């Protein structure tokens, strides 16, 4: 199996150490377009799309395998093996923060440090734990996703998939960064927003940096602090950036915080 093609792996930069960027739920590796180039001088940068997103091979989407974050973590490990990565820096946004943690636990030595941008170990409230959402609200989101195909149509799929490089955005490819087969989007959303990785946090031994945005409705500051508190020896940086995607809205701040850490 060609892991690089399956996950649309892109490699840039030079350096002994590798830095692996993983995108979260919603869009694809383009989420890192303002951050990744800043590290090309000192790192071999690795970008990829989760299966189901962006330029990945949709035919490899297996609802059973990707029925839990563990399936995505396995892919991440396979990418690491194929590229012969050791002691790499992992940078994961949103749900990929937990995917990176799972991979670091399954494959010790793969990563020497973890940068978690907007992580959440659980999105749904549970007793005293405040994830930020009720189970009903997550169901609403899943229904909502069905109404929002983002211009997806089965006929368009080959055009989108065959255009992994996307040198220029044609009118045809409008919204393509965040366009996914609606069934896959819904399934990934369910897996993401019903995940619970709170028990995995304490097992992390890799040095970890948590980057937390202000006013993030997906992963609140309280949630970010919880993640930091549970991961032994981890650091928390609260960014001035608002929203859930500082990698896009405040790349300079993200880059600075990452440089200080790695």
């Amino acid at each position, binding site marked *: 199996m060609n892991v690089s093609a399956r996950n649309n792996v892109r490699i840039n930069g030079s350096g002994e150490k590798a830095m692996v960027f993983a995108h979260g*739920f*919603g869009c694809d590796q383009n989420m890192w377009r303002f951050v990744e180039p800043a590290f090309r001088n000192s790192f071999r940068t690795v970008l990829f799309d989760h299966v189901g997103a962006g330029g990945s091979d949709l035919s490899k989407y297996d609802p059973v395998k990707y029925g839990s974050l563990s399936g995505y973590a396995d892919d991440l490990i396979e990418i690491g093996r194929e590229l012969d990565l050791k002691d790499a820096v992992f940078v994961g946004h949103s749900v990929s923060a937990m995917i990176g943690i799972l991979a670091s636990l399954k494959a010790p030595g793969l990563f020497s440090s973890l940068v978690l941008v907007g992580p959440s170990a659980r999105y749904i409230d549970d007793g005293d734990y405040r994830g930020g959402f009720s189970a009903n609200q997550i169901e609403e*989101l899943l229904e909502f996703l069905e109404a929002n195909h983002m211009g997806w149509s089965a006929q368009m799929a080959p055009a989108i998939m065959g255009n992994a490089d996307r040198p220029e955005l044609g009118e045809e490819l409008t919204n393509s960064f965040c366009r996914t087969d609606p069934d896959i989007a819904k399934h990934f959303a369910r897996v993401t927003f019903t995940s619970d990785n709170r028990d995995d946090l304490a097992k992390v031994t890799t040095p970890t940096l948590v980057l937390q945005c202000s006013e993030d409705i997906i992963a609140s500051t309280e949630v970010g602090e919880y993640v930091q508190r549970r991961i032994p020896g981890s650091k928390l940086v609260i960014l001035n950036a608002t929203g*859930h995607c500082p990698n896009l809205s405040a790349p300079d701040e993200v880059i600075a915080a990452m440089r200080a850490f790695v």
Partner: protein
Amino acid sequence: MKSSRRCAPLSELTPSVPASSIIEDLEDLYENAPCGYLSLEPGGRIFKVNKTLCNWTGYGPEELLGKRLHHLLNIAGRMFYETHIAPLLRMQGFFHEVALDLVTAKGDLLPMIVNAAERRDSEGKPISTRITFLRATERRRYERELLDARDQSRSQEAAARASLTSERETSELREQFIAVLGHDLRNPLASISAGARILLRKPKDETETKVLQMMETTVLRMAGLIDNVLDFARGRLGGGITLSRNADTSIEPVLQQVVDELRTAMPDRRIESDFRITQPINCDRTRLGQLVSNLLGNALTHGAPDKPVLVRALTDNGMFELSVSNAGEPISAEAMEHLFQPFFRGRVRASLQGLGLGLHIASEIARAHEGTLTVKSDSEETRFTFLMPLRI
């Protein structure tokens, strides 16, 4: 060609009204446009909103200024905005045709189609984001119906596929069952028959001979019944009667064997045969053997016991004709109607009662050969005639 279809300038179309006399009130266009307008600071706060959007949502402008767009969205919309729309805006500078529900001051949902574009400075930094809202209640309802219809047809298809699969499995199981049953029933019968034949060759008294002959008859009848039952089951389960035709080998020995077998089994009865086959017959020999065996068995059961049964076979006029006739009571008009239907049984004594499949199978064999099986019955004789074309 294309150039000739270009739109004519406005002035040419409306010569009586000079274009300069129409002045659009841009302020009014913004405020009262047939769509909602809203502008966001780079930090995501609303700094301008038009009257149309205020009217639709029931908020005054002062209630919206300084708020985030989240203020007008439900939780799902906010999550979608954060995970899809905000990133898209930063990445491609715009988004088109996104379906969002606005939450009004009263809490109602207003389905919208939303476009947005970032206004950027010369360095590409965002100055503001302009968002346009178009109402889409009807369209959303229609899309919802399409989605529901799709889901429904998907689940129906899945159910149909599941039942088809289970039907196939059942049918395969039946096929196997029939094959195994046929094998298991025929084998013991063959050993009984073989045993009876061995005993018939040894010296014995009259009673023993009679008993052994009866056993032969019974075995023969039993074998015929099994064949018929299996054929019927196959036919009903979709297999039908399949033929393996062969024109090179003569049919006569097969017919003779059937007649001989019944003669041996029923020495008290007279079976006369008259075979005049001069041309090759492209037929399934085993099947025609079964057909004649069924007809002959039928004639012996229902015909007058003291009168002979006649089997005739001949080729003539490009046809193969095979008939079995017997004397005795004619078939009643009522029975005539159902003669070839499965499980139809004429009135005979219980010990001779069959399953009522013999004539049905015979007619199916005839049909498979593109031939016909007909009956004529009067006080003189009852005659079944099979007719098939020689060259098919």
